């Protein structure tokens, strides 16, 4: 009899678990390697607390776009994707993404979501992407070197003249110490950290809707002169000229650089990997003060026609909860919900608050050909920044970039 009961119990358990598995749904999402720290943590937390599950794939940064394109063509695309936000307009224009306008607008906290992300996630008045992870650009300085140079280690530069003057003083320490660092052959790095100097001074390189290149502004010319003067005075290491971004963060982390524009990611990276570097964080200033920031990070997009929409929405809703935002913040992304950002960051390094403030006002240029214009190592923006910072013909380089950018915009399939 006991045997029979045991068998019945076993049968019930097997049947029950079988039914349970059948009822749960699994959605597949992809993330670029930049998210490899926070994404598995938030997926784990979600999977533990929900019946429906997420299966996560981490794809190398450079491969995620071609791989997604190939998968979409072959009908094997993931249900959703955490996508570098600048690509959202071109993905939407290609008809690849699910229109999530109604759902997005029904979220009670919709108005508090990072405006720059929502703007790039919107194409022809429809929403195709919502903010997922975020990174703002900030200026970081080495407090130890500031002190050695006779500067106030607690006060970072607040305008361009102060950047140049502080960098020069640090540089005067000599040896391997240099005043300033930037990656001189990296389009992505410079849109992220050089562009805010121009925005903060009232200039821009693209019109609001991305249909016009506007490189011929005095603000751009002024910011170029600031960098050129520092290069000329030898305040910048020689390797900056050919740095395609590999050294973007590493140069400052080595402890020999006075000031460097960077991203909020640097706070976590410095704290965990370079605890000996004592640094300050401030905004990227305009010529005479004020400040601005690039809004980077990822938008969450859904592949058109996916059958797992409900799971994907449930996951995103979890990511937007205080628990989700706290996990993201703890493992390297700024919160994307402005209304609970402070709470999510409460237990973290207070320097994150500056980055979060920068994020709230952050800007992202809007273009369906952003990759061609800005990120491409051989595109007009990368070529221009390298020429104007280190070359001889500044005006020619700007004019050339203006013309090339406009022709790429004009030839784009959809605007």
């Amino acid at each position, binding site marked *: 009899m006991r045997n029979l009961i045991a068998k019945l119990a076993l049968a019930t358990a097997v049947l029950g678990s079988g039914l349970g598995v059948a009822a749960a749904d699994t959605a597949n999402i992809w993330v670029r390697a930049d998210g490899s720290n926070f994404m598995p943590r938030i997926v784990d937390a979600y999977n533990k607390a929900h019946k429906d599950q997420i299966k996560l794939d981490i794809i190398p940064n450079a491969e995620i*776009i071609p791989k997604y394109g190939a998968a979409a063509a072959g009908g094997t695309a993931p249900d959703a994707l955490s996508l570098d936000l600048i690509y959202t307009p071109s993905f939407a224009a290609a008809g690849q993404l699910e229109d999530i306008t109604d759902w997005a607008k029904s979220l009670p906290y919709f108005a508090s979501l990072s405006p720059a992300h929502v703007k790039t996630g919107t194409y022809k008045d429809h929403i195709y992407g919502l903010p997922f992870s975020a990174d703002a650009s900030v200026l970081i300085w080495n407090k130890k070197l500031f002190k050695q140079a006779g500067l106030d280690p607690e006060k970072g530069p607040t305008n361009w003249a102060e950047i140049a003057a502080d960098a020069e003083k640090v540089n005067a320490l000599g040896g391997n110490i240099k005043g300033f660092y930037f990656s001189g052959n990296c389009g992505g790095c410079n849109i992220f950290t050089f562009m805010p100097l121009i925005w903060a001074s009232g200039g821009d390189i693209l019109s609001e809707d991305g249909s016009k290149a506007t490189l011929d502004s005095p603000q751009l010319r002024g910011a170029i002169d600031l960098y050129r003067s520092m290069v000329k005075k030898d305040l910048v290491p*020689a390797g900056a000229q050919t740095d395609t971004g590999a050294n973007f963060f590493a140069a400052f982390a080595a402890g020999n650089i006075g000031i460097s524009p960077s991203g909020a990611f640097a706070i976590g990276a410095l704290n965990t990997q370079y605890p000996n570097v004592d640094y300050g964080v401030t905004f990227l200033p305009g010529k005479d003060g004020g400040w601005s920031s690039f809004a980077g990070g990822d938008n969450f997009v859904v592949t058109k026609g996916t059958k797992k929409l409900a799971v994907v929405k449930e996951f995103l809703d979890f990511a937007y909860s205080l628990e989700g935002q706290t996990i993201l913040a703890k493992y390297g992304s700024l919160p994307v919900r402005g209304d609970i950002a402070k709470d999510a960051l409460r237990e973290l390094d207070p320097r994150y608050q500056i980055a979060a403030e920068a994020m709230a006002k952050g800007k992202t240029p809007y273009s369906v050909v952003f*990759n061609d214009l800005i990120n*491409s190592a051989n595109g007009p923006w990368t070529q221009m920044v390298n020429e104007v910072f280190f070359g001889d013909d500044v005006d020619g380089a700007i004019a050339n970039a203006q013309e090339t950018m406009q022709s790429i915009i004009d030839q784009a399939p959809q605007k």
Partner: protein
Amino acid sequence: MRRKYRQAMTTITATTTAPPRVRKLVGAGRRQWIGLLYVAPAVALVMVFFVIPLGMTAWMSLHNWPLMGEHAFIGLDNYWAILRDTRFWNALKFTGYYTVIVTIAIFAIAFPLAIFIEKPRPFTNLYRTFFFMPAVVGFASASLLWSWLLNVDSGLFSPAAYDLGLIDKKFNLLATFQPAFWSIIAMVVWKVAGFTMIILMTGLQSIPQDLQEAAVIDGAGPFARFRAITLPLMRRTLALALILSVAGSILAFDQFYIILRGGPRNQTLTAVYWIFNQSFVSFKLGYGAALSMVLLVILVALSLIQLWLLRKPEGLD
């Protein structure tokens, strides 16, 4: 004297290259089938990894084929667009310039090395291994290694020269065209010369020793022997090494992508780099396919020209 060598050479080549006699036997048909069966795996590989992709590339080149979204047939429009693509033609011009320089450089290093290691002498095997070793490193790994060596701040060359007091200021080799270009040439020669050396060495070893000895007895100096015996008998080997070097250089990509990213200021964009750029940065797969087809035609034409130039002269067979 020269005629004597020629006669001797003719006899030798004639014996070594005489066509095999075909015997018609009962069951030859069956054997042919067995033969076909043996080569079937190789044929299948060529079909799957060459013929079918080639056909697909040709088909794609006739389409407006974005990375994402619908594709549409546009006939020869991509090819007309190539005619106006000045950056492609500039890239092709640079690729040609690079090919000529790097091929000359490789042969200039590999030939003397091949002569040096051809004959057994103390430590020959050690030398052979030493010279050949870089060839086994993948191009991408070698490029990464060199991009570190060439780094002005944290690498080897510039910091070492600075620390030894040879230069007053660290010099960024990759910042301007000429030093950057020659740095790449140095890296490629380091990487490829050993491989070319082995090919040339086998060619040298196949030259009959008695020909050289006869020439020495007749009083021919080293230069005369090289010109009248070595070079003519090396034609086939030279053709092979030359075609491999030229084809490899026309398709150069890894080192320019990894070390220079086409820089400084897009002056080192190669043809394949531009195809990569159009396909996977601008996401224009159809246009990239058309560019690939054009490059393929150029490559086949160049190889045919080389084979024709290095064909066996009359009277040697």
